[in-house]
């Protein structure tokens, strides 16, 4: 392998000519040069193989024919407009938030006043390209393609509008806009599940990416407050709360998720009275929630440990009671410290939803496994695996990117007032 060195010790390569720069990067020594050659050959070989496969042998019909199954599972056709509506609302809200973030930078932001910083321009172009090219590449029907375009258009239009007129909005209005997210969350569950005037769609009929996202977002939203409570319990100086939290957290963290899902599917029925028989999807959702809460609690705990004791004392000495002090002073700081770890847990949670396919639920992976088993598509599972990998990777990577952006945004504040 190449000779290790501390990265900061690298040559000031930017000053060198491109060729020299390349040489400094690839072949600082003869051995490194040989290694680089080998690696280059390997990469070239892989690229040729993959390219040849993608152009020649890959058959994307398996995706075209099953795109709706993969997206929403067996969700009734007549009710799918609800999902598109939800998609449009989400796109609108995302565009709005994005634009407002840019319109209201923190006082110390570098990009202040810049409506379209460079990253945003790149993102906008990417979104446009994806919306235009991907549906076409998959050969989706015209009506479906149009809907994807509409979603992208809504997102970008609201991004622009919010960035343009956002600064003129009153502070109070902005606070209200922040409430839109939880509102949209509840609205989303109503649109997906029905009831209250809409035809009910049982959880058993949700599937594919829809089920994956519903499960992941449900577990994220609910495990968050649970995790914070558990973390507070674990750091409490009341022995019963502390030991209770410790026991719970360690029990959950000691067991593989699959055994916990197993308990949810096979044991829960024995624990509940016969009159209560929650749906299998909800059981799994709650298991995921309780599972994620334990891991989140550990992340939050490390955050709480990083908040100096003086913060609580200062808040109490100002007359805030314990709850007020925790909510307004301690927890916000703890969460900021814990943010990277927490997002790591959320990424793990998205990945963990694939285990639902092992207990007979048709999440994205479960749906794909069903499709792959269809002899009609035998020999074309590579295409499905690739698309699934890209989808999951994008979800996880997007979460990671988002968290890093959020960290940066919070950064000036995290230069804490500690001496």
């Amino acid at each position, binding site marked *: *392998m*190449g*000779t*290790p*060195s*501390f*990265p*900061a*010790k*690298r040559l000031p390569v930017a000053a060198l000519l491109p060729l020299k720069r390349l040489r400094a*990067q*690839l*072949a*600082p*020594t003869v051995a*490194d040069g040989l*290694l*680089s050659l080998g*690696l*280059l050959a390997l*990469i070239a070989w892989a690229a040729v193989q993959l390219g040849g496969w993608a152009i020649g042998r890959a058959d994307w019909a398996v995706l075209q024919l099953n795109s709706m199954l993969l997206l929403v599972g067996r969700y009734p056709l007549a009710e799918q407009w609800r999902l598109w509506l939800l998609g449009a609302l989400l796109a609108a809200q995302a565009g709005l938030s994005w634009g407002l973030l840019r319109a209201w930078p923190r006082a110390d932001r570098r990009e202040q006043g810049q409506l379209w910083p460079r990253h945003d321009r790149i993102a906008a172009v990417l979104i446009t390209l994806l919306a235009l090219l991907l549906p076409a590449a998959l050969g989706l029907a015209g009506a479906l393609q149009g809907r994807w375009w509409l979603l992208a258009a809504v997102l970008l239009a609201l991004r622009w509008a919010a960035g343009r007129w956002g600064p003129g909005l009153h502070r109070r209005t902005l606070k209200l806009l922040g409430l839109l997210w939880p509102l949209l969350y509840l609205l989303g569950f109503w649109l997906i599940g029905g009831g209250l005037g809409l035809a009910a769609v049982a959880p058993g009929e949700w599937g594919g990416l829809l089920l994956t996202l519903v499960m992941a977002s449900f577990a994220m939203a609910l495990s968050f407050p649970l995790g914070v409570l558990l973390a507070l319990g674990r750091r409490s100086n009341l*022995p*019963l*709360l502390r030991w*209770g939290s410790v026991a719970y957290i360690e029990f959950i963290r*000691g*067991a*593989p*998720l*699959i*055994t916990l899902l*197993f308990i949810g599917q*096979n*044991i829960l*029925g*024995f*624990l*509940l*009275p*016969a009159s209560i028989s929650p749906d299998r999807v909800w059981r799994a959702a709650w298991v995921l929630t309780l599972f994620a809460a334990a891991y989140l609690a550990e992340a939050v705990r490390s955050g709480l440990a990083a908040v100096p004791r003086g913060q609580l004392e200062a808040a109490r000495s100002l007359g805030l009671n314990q709850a007020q002090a925790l909510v307004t002073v301690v927890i916000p700081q703890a969460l900021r410290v814990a943010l990277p770890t927490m997002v790591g847990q959320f*990424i793990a949670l*998205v*990945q*963990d939803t*694939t*285990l639902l*396919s*092992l207990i007979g639920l048709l999440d994205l*992976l479960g749906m794909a*496994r069903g499709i*792959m088993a269809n002899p009609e598509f035998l020999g074309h*599972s*590579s295409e499905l*695996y690739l698309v699934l*990998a890209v989808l*999951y*990777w994008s979800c*996880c*990577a997007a979460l*990671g990117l988002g968290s890093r952006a959020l960290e940066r945004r919070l950064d000036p504040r995290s230069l804490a007032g500690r001496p």
Partner: protein
Amino acid sequence: MNGTPWWRDRRVLPWLLQAVVGLAVLVLVALLMTNLVRNLSAAGLLLSWRWLGQPAGFDLSETLLPFNASMPYGRALLAGLLNTLRVIVIALLGSSLLGALVGMAAFSRNGLLRGLARVYVEVVRNVPLLLQLLFWYFLVFLALPDGRAALQLPGLVLAKSGLYLAGFAGGSWQGPQLLNGSWQAPLQLSVEFGALLTGLITYIGAFIAEVVRGGIASVPRGQWEAAGSLGLHGVATLRHIVLPQALRVIVPGLTNQYISLAKASSLALACGFTDLYSVAETTLNQTGRAVEVVLVLLAAYLAIDLLISAAMNGLNRLVQVRER
């Protein structure tokens, strides 16, 4: 100090809070347990371990412990546990090696190597393990050719029917041989085992690489410079100066990864390998003893976790002591 009503007394309040929470939990647990006992007795399934001694009636493949269908459930579960341990031990060594190499590659002077290490870590960590296991099993290992066309490397043959390794047999070194159209070798692994190992090693390896990278990065830059000024070259610096210090940070991170490896090994059933979880599922199916089977599972994995924690704590103490 007197005359304070008890519900506002700060000496009483913490206990009150604990009592309320404790009582709520107690009531909940009592309710659940009452239901459990009632439902179990209604189904005639009250806790009993007699079934452990009854013949299992199913066969297991690839066990370390000799097993056939007439042996009891208890032995089947034990065989499954041994298989799980085998996976964990081998994957643990493999992923540590891979992780260490990739983690150190992040500090290579070779830009290409650095880039590849980064891409590997970013790709593998963000794709679910289960998907990767299915990929390795169905797309890679089951696509291997068989018989004469099998992939033949020195001392190793990869075929759809299994992985064949050279080894000592009957006192002499023997490589894989083709006999009557099927391969024979001193060491044979099923492709299920191979797929599971490959998946676990590459997945956990990526996480370990991050731990190692973080550990090395935590060593102050002055240490590299000091070593360089003493005339040590890169590899020697890494081995003698940096790694011993980095281990202090790496070992605790490794513990977490090893435990998550142990838990992840329960996904074996996705690629058809007979591990503890898979045996437990079959056992549940035959006996209907859901509660007992889950208790066995939880106890086994908890014990494995504790074992790893204890071993790693020992290692940690060793590393930290040497530092002083």
